[in-house]
């Protein structure tokens, strides 16, 4: 059962989940906010794909790019109008705001479009496969892996080699101190929301390439995956998000192969048992953020 096809599919799923988790963790790292509206950014990306693919003559690559941009700007917009005004108040206020934003976006989609699922016209490449070493591998999976690789490289370059990236990492370490060095809080937070939105937009493309439909409630399952993956990997570390995404994908794929058919529908329940076991032994997640301890001397 565990053959090349399985391995490539799992890596592809892991890549998708890693991108998902990164988008959630980049905001959590700085604001300590679990943005429950994150799933709706994916939904917004999905509807952008649906609308443009159905009603515009634009080429698909361009449509995909626009979906990412729309998700990014939606993310920035929610930060500006919803999160920024309550930021100084309390973390609870932020959390409740994220639920409100999530509900508003969902109801917006219900009202403006339809409660019913809409079919997204996908390009040919998402329905074809390629033969690798005698195994048929869907292009969709290869594209997912390549996209997440490119994103990981870009994100690493940003975080390691630009002043904005260094400021983002510093803010995740100690936000007040970062501000006391003259780094504007708004710049850092906007950057985090932009990155989160880009991740959500990219995920929406590949998430929808699997189901080929969009619904207003589309955001809930990916949000749950992202949340669980970050809990597994460690909420405060970007590496942890990637690790968590892959661990989630590997475990859920293995469960799919190993569980007897009668238990397959309880796959998620087994997944959560696994998460509970991890948390019992490593409550801070697999990767903890405080990598270094002060040396005495």
């Amino acid at each position, binding site marked *: 059962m565990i053959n090349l096809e399985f391995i490539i599919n799992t890596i592809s799923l892991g890549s998708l989940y890693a991108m998902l988790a990164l988008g959630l963790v980049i905001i959590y790292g700085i604001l300590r906010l679990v943005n429950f509206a994150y799933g709706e950014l994916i939904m917004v990306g999905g509807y952008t794909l649906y609308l443009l693919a159905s009603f515009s003559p634009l080429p698909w690559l361009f449509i995909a790019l626009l979906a990412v941009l729309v998700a990014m700007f939606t993310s920035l917009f929610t930060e500006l109008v919803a999160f920024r005004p309550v930021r100084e108040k309390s973390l609870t206020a932020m959390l409740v705001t994220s639920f409100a934003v999530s509900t508003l976006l969902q109801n917006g989609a219900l009202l403006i479009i339809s409660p019913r699922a809409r079919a997204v016209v996908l390009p040919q490449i998402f329905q074809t496969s390629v033969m690798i070493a005698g195994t048929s591998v869907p292009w969709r999976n290869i594209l997912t892996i390549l996209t997440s690789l490119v994103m990981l490289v870009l994100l690493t370059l940003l975080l390691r080699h630009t002043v904005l990236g260094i400021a983002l990492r510093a803010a995740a370490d100690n936000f007040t101190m970062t501000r006391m060095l*003259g780094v504007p809080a708004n710049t850092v937070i906007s950057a985090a929301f932009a990155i989160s939105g880009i991740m959500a937009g990219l995920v929406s493309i590949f998430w929808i390439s699997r189901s080929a439909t969009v619904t207003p409630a589309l955001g809930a399952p990916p949000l749950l995956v992202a949340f669980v993956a970050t809990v597994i990997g460690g909420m405060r570390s970007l590496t942890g998000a990637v690790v968590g995404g892959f661990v989630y994908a590997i475990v859920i794929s293995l469960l799919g192969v190993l569980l007897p058919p009668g238990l397959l529908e309880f796959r998620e329940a087994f997944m959560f048992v696994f998460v509970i076991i991890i948390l019992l032994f490593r409550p801070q997640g697999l990767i903890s953020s405080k990598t270094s301890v*002060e040396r005495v001397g």
Partner: protein
Amino acid sequence: MLELNSIHARYGAITALRGVSINVSQGELVALLGLNGAGKSTTLGCIAGVLKPWQGDILFDGASIAGKSPEQIARLGISLVPEGRDIFSSLTVDENLRLGGYILKEKAEYHRNLDEIFELFPVLKERFQQPGGTLSGGEQQQLAIARALMSSPRLLMLDEPSLGLAPALVDQIFELIDRLHQRGVTILLVEQNVDRSLEIVDRAYLMNTGRIESQGTPQQLRTHADIEGIYMGVKGQSGK
């Protein structure tokens, strides 16, 4: 240069400052001395914009900065080295210093400051690519001060720079503060180490329970009657 007019501040229900007025002139080294809980760090927090005073005004170069954000105040040239140093432990020394110079507009100034830092703190050059968290306590304190100096601050505020350091390192830190002062850096120093502070400062304020108890030059303060209580208390504490 810096003027605090009757600052009141509180944390929730607890009043931490009850009418603090101090001033620091260009080029001066001024200390804020007192016991734990006297309100020294709170005063620095108000100046740095981390805490908003609910009464009173803070003037920097004659303009009010009370209620401004930490980043706005940093851009005006006020730099705080907080108690506990707060270096970014997962960032390298290089990255810590780069953020220290975040507000600089010219690259040339950044490199000029970096050269000066290497001259003042040779160890940071050795550790340039090491994560800040792997440095020893004394090295971290040097990094914290160096990071503050990278922005070419007009006013440098140091909160308990000698805290938790070995005696030999405490000497080094006080020598360094003295040297920075000689170079013309305006410094507001918060310390519990009254003895050592009075050796190097131009003037000092003695704080107790959120108020300024007395002030003056080191000579004036040493002969002042009020000092005994606070001074002895501090001495007793630092002797532990």
